[in-house]
């Protein structure tokens, strides 16, 4: 390990332990780590956007490549800042309307074409297929699960009789789904802790030798 690597390892270890100190109680060391993280993130993000967007995609193409038409989106972007002055706040609505229009256009197609329709198509599978009884069983589970869950969220009629029974089946599907999510969430959180402990034992304590 070089000197700078050892310094980095100790710095990371300090901030890891500083954040873990919250497990005891809120304290100044935790606060310092939290504020440094927030400040560094904001500064880094501003610098990154300045370099990768303003310089690379606006300033350089305009001044070096002569693509002067980029002044239009550039000015539109800067008009967003008029929100800071009450009298001309309305000007910021022009670029905002443009952003909303473009975003809605892109999202409408991509969400419908990429998410809604393929997922619907895969829900409406033929019951009688050639993939055996196992697949048939899974298809029935999908159909029953989707219909009963949708009925659970149908509030225009009181959940009594057949509707009530179907809604109760829907609750079971929702609970099983929550259980799967909870199990995975526990695994995720434990993984993060394992990662930190691995770092402290292997890298930080390892740097002592």
């Amino acid at each position: 390990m070089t000197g700078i690597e050892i310094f980095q390892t100790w710095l990371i270890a300090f901030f890891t332990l500083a954040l873990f100190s919250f497990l005891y109680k809120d304290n100044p060391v935790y606060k310092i780590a939290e504020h440094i993280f927030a400040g560094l993130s904001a500064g880094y993000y501003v610098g990154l956007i300045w370099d990768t967007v303003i310089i690379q995609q606006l300033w350089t193409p305009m001044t070096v490549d002569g693509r002067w038409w980029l002044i239009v989106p550039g000015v539109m972007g800067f008009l967003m800042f008029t929100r800071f002055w009450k009298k001309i706040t309305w000007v910021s609505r022009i670029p905002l309307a443009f952003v909303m229009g473009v975003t809605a256009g892109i999202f409408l197609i991509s969400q419908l074409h990429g998410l809604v329709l393929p997922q619907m198509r895969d829900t409406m599978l033929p019951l009688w297929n050639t993939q055996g009884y196992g697949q048939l069983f899974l298809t029935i589970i999908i159909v029953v699960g989707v219909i009963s869950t949708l009925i659970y969220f149908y509030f225009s009629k009181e959940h009594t009789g057949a509707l009530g029974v179907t809604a109760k089946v829907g609750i079971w599907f929702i609970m099983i789904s929550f259980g799967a999510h909870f199990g995975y969430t526990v695994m995720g959180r434990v993984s993060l802790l394992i990662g930190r402990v691995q770092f402290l034992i292997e890298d930080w304590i390892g740097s002592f030798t």
Partner: protein
Amino acid sequence: MVFDSVEALPDSSIVMLVFDYYPSTIAECEPMARTALHHFWRKDCRVITLSNIPLGGPSMAENVTREIAPEYDKQYGIDYVNLGYKANYVAVLAGMGNSIESIFPTDNSGTPLSEIPLMDSVVNYEQVSFIFEVADNATADYWVSIVNAQYGVPIACGVTAVSAPKYYAFVASGQFVGLLGGMKGAAEYEQLVGKRGKAVVGMGAQSLVHLLIISLVLIGNIGYFVTGKARKGMSR
């Protein structure tokens, strides 16, 4: 399924490895990215890395590729390139379908793409055979809805355990060719590729914690039923 999809790629294919995770989820996501890189380079694939995550994404891509490259004798610019980060991932993903160079005029260190040999033969998604997205957030949705749906590029995904249940639906519908869920998925992939790393090591502790939680749930339920009987007895 991720392993089989990469195995099925022709040698020397051009692939994308996307570092869409923050440093906070390194424990789950980095083993996936590392193993995928080993797998790609074992098949002599040329790798384009990029990130839609501003904080840490490009530098993690840089660290991982530069650390593993010497093992396979891979050279920057010829065998791999790091495009870095660009803001607004929806516009980035849609724009790369037209021209990657228009979105990333330079690589992460500021070298123009026109000076990078690997990018000579890459214009847009048409030249990319496979995308492996490693994510700890919803960017995976957009790789599906924009890149897979509109350009038909096969995508596999490695996600944190928290978001894994959501993405199984995309595997069932064929929109993802494979999915790695959390540290468990990463450990399985490490085993298959034969590169046992931090995920495999971490699974020992992971299993122990799960056994502890299951025991506590069982003890809690037994306690509930036992005290419930006692409560009933008292009320009589």
